[in-house]
Each structure stands twice: as structure tokens, then as C-alpha cells.
């Protein structure tokens, strides 16, 4: 028997954050992520941390901004509508070069939408989670174990490059229980830069620090954006994560992330049993995107199939990464509906018929 415990994704993520040194949480209740905040409310007072239920999502992200300015690891979590509200603060944190962790346990949209699992915030998370030129480090776990193991990675990348990180999960991952091994998730540690920029009182020992996203002179603002994009380039170079399953001989390569990738794995197994050569590229980081892996897959695959819980938000990324060398099909359900493995298999068969 290993050190496994059975935990909900939301709770496991919260515990992982604490184990990665984040004892400051600011949030606002919203289904289906609320267990995360509840777990923090129970645990953080016992480790001399702070869990504060803010008056709004907007206030919560700004509390994170204040806490992160102090140089501590801080986080907030929400679900889709709440993330939209946090966009303001996220943009300010990017502009102020503040690391933090934001968790989005996605639900159906737009608007109030629904509360069932969705991946409809892909474009928001990867392209424009706020105004201005910006990126977050975005990871998409596919299991409760990854809800845990990616937390440390997200904080480390955030601290290394001074960028906010986002865990883009969904209602199913947040709500489901799976065995988790926390010790296995803590294995790799990296050297992190000292937060000499923190505004925690200069104590007469250094010059004052300023945390700020305002650059009234355009040349200064441009310079600051360009400098940030140099860091983004390093993230794209060093921090891409993905998983490949049976891609080498695959005629059809499915591209799917998060909970959807699991449904696809089941479908791939069925298709292989029928003799259809299907593989999977699962982006684990959604930004930076695993462009090279897809470009490589395009050398051997004949057809790509993007499967998502939205209307095809990732399709363009696959087309760009593969330079449109192969046809890219899309299959998805939206609004909180989940496809079955059989549904995906039917799409695979359709494409396979075309290939032959």
C-alpha cells in the first residue's frame, strides 16, 4: 500500500498549494470550485496562514496582488464567470510582474452559463486573460494527481519568471475523487530567485521598492512589455509540457487536454482494437503551447482531430503549430455536456474512412 489518499480534485489542489508553501488564499464561493476555498478555510488557520473570503472576485484577486507584492506565495481560485471578474486584477499582476496562482475550475458559459464541466475558457486563459499584451503560464491537469503535481510546477514557474500562473481545470476534475500521492508530486524542486522586489518594508536597509503597472511614457511602457516578452520567450523555450500516447505510428492524432484527453484515451483504445491507428498529443501546458511536438507529429500523422469541451477554441493553435500541413478536424460538446468515448470513436471512424 502506497501513501495514497482518496481526494476530490479541488481539495487535493488546495492541499498541494499548502504543501508548496502557499498559505495565503483569497477567494469567493462559486460552483464547482467551492471545496477548494472550504478546504483552505479549514486548513490554513492551522498552519498560521490566511484564508479570506473576499467581498467579490475582484477584491479577491486584488488581495492576491497585495499578498504577492509582499513576496509570499498567494493564490485564488474560481470558476469561469469569476475568472472574468478577476481579469482586471490578473492584468495588473502581469503588468506589475507579480507571481501568483489562479485556479479556474471551468464551468459552462457564456454568461452565468451552467455549472457542469466545460473547457470554454481556453481562449481566455491562453490568449487574453485581461487587457494588454499578456500571457499567463497555463497548465491543464487531466487527473486529480496532476491537480496536485502541477501546483508546484505552476508556483515555481511563476516565481522564476515573475508571471501569474493558472491551473485550468474543469468541474469534473474539481469534483471527482481519485487516489493521490502527495509525496510523489513533491519530488522535483528548483532553485528560485530571491524576491528582492517585494514591498514588505525597506527597514532602512535598501531603497524603496515600487510594485506598479503604470508607465505613462509609451517608450517606457514598450520597454517593459518587451522585457516581459523576453521572459515569455524563455518560458516557451523551457517550460513546455505535454504527453504523447501512441503517436509514432498514428494516422490520426487527437489533440486534447484535461478531462477530455481521458475520454479520448478510452476512445483510442477502442479504435486501436479495431485496427485504426490513433494517437494522442495532450498539451499539459496550454501556454506555452507544445508547438514542436505537434509539428513533429504532423510529419507522420495524416489527420488531426481536436477534441474539446467547447466549440473548437484550440483548433487554430493546432493549425498554426502544424503549419496547416494536415487537415484538422474538430469534435466537441459544449455548455457542460461531455462526449462519450463512443462519440469520439465515431469521429475517429469517420476520419479513418476518409483517409482510406
Amino acid at each position, binding site marked *: *500500500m502506497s501513501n495514497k489518499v*482518496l481526494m476530490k480534485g479541488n481539495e487535493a489542489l488546495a492541499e498541494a498549494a499548502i504543501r508548496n508553501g502557499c498559505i495565503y488564499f483569497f477567494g469567493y464561493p462559486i460552483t464547482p470550485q467551492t471545496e477548494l476555498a472550504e478546504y483552505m478555510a479549514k486548513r490554513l488557520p492551522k498552519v498560521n496562514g490566511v484564508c479570506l473570503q473576499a467581498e467579490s472576485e475582484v477584491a479577491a484577486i486584488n488581495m492576491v496582488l497585495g499578498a504577492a507584492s509582499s513576496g509570499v506565495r498567494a493564490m485564488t481560485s474560481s470558476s469561469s464567470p469569476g475568472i472574468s471578474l478577476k481579469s482586471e486584477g490578473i492584468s495588473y499582476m502581469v503588468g506589475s510582474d507579480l507571481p501568483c496562482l489562479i485556479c479556474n475550475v471551468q464551468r459552462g458559459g457564456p454568461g452565468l452559463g451552467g455549472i457542469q464541466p466545460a473547457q470554454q475558457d481556453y481562449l481566455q486563459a491562453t490568449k487574453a486573460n485581461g487587457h494588454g499584451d499578456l500571457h499567463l503560464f497555463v497548465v491543464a491537469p487531466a487527473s486529480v494527481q496532476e491537480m496536485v503535481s502541477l501546483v508546484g510546477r505552476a508556483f515555481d514557474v511563476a516565481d522564476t519568471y515573475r508571471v501569474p500562473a493558472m491551473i485550468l481545470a474543469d468541474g469534473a476534475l474539481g*469534483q*471527482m475523487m*481519485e487516489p493521490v500521492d502527495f509525496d510523489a508530486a513533491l519530488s522535483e524542486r528548483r532553485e528560485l530567485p530571491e524576491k528582492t522586489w517585494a514591498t514588505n518594508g525597506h527597514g532602512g536597509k535598501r531603497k524603496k521598492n515600487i510594485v506598479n503597472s503604470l508607465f505613462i511614457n509609451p517608450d517606457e511602457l514598450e520597454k517593459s512589455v518587451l522585457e516581459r516578452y523576453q521572459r515569455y520567450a524563455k518560458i516557451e523555450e523551457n517550460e513546455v509540457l505535454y504527453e504523447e500516447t501512441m503517436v509514432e505510428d498514428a494516422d490520426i492524432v487527437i489533440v486534447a487536454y484535461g478531462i477530455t484527453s481521458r475520454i*479520448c484515451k478510452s476512445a483510442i483504445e477502442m479504435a486501436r482494437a479495431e485496427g485504426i491507428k490513433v494517437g494522442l498529443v495532450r498539451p499539459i501546458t496550454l501556454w506555452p503551447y507544445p508547438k514542436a511536438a505537434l509539428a513533429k507529429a504532423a510529419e507522420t500523422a495524416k489527420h488531426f482531430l481536436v477534441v474539446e469541451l467547447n466549440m473548437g477554441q484550440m483548433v487554430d493553435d493546432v493549425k498554426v503549430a502544424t503549419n496547416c500541413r494536415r487537415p484538422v478536424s474538430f469534435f466537441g460538446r459544449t455548455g457542460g455536456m461531455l462526449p462519450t468515448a463512443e462519440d469520439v470513436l465515431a469521429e475517429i471512424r469517420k476520419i479513418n474512412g476518409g483517409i482510406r
Partner: protein
Amino acid sequence: MTTEILLAGFGGQGILFAGKQLAKTAMHEDKCVSWLPSYGPEMRGGSANCSVIISDKEIGSPIINRPDVLIAFNLPSFDKFESKIKSGGILIANSTLISTKSTRDDINAYYIPATQMASENGLEGGANVIILGYFLKLTKLFDYDKFVDLMVAGIPATKTKLIENNKKALKLGYDYN
């Protein structure tokens, strides 16, 4: 081998707890396991269900569309899911609240008046554990004693009455014919 178990009933019938006991026991036997609940406003007095998948290999989709085993705690759940049971699968129905019988001849259907048994034995709210006992007997999925140990381990030791009641309920179900 993969076993997909769907537990469904009213919110408050202990569906999620029952599912969790199965998942926990499977985990302790080093199986791969996933437990996925329904959630949201429908849980407030409405229907609740949870999907438990137990497998020797990594679990793909945690969603169950065609269960190997359906444990139906009430009539709406029976109506909704009975037709979805895999051919050759198992239905366990709480016959206190489900008056109809399955007409399918390709499944093994079992009936237990769990809610009635619970109230007759002073085990209000214990129908879920009674059904678990019956499930253990029918499926032989887990060792009975091991299951009891793990269930008891999840209850604070100070709650001796609760521990006794759960043990009693499990046994009632296990011994039901």
C-alpha cells in the same frame, strides 16, 4: 478488469458516501479508481448520483454511460438508468422505494428493501450501507472484513454508536437473501 458502478438516488440517501467506501476500498487494494459525483442545485433534495470506476489499468473517462452495476436507491434513478446497464450487468434496487421490476432478461436484477430494513432495525439513514453489504455479497468485489475495517477507519473512533450502526447495517445487507 474494469468495473463501472453507478449509484443513484435522492440527495441525503448517502449515495456519495456509499460510492466513496467502494472507491476507498479499491484504492487500498492498489486498484485504479475514480469517483465522480453529480453536483450543484440538483443535489439539494433532488437526485444525486455518483460514478465509481474500479480498474486494473489507468482510467480514461471517469464518466459512466453504461454501468456494469447500477445501484438504484429510488424510482427516478431506476427509471433513468436501468436501461443503460450493460448487457450481463447487475442491478441492485432499493425495493422499498422502487415498486417496479426490471423487465430486462440480459441483466441480473436484485431487490432489497433497504429503507424498510433500516427503519425496522433502528438504523435510520443506514439504507445505503445495507445496500453496500448486499453489493459485497453479490459481487464479491472486496473482502468483507477488509471493507468493514476501512469503513470503520473513516469514522472518528469516538462515535462508537455510529460505528456499531454501520457494522450492523453492512451485515444486514450482506446476510439478506
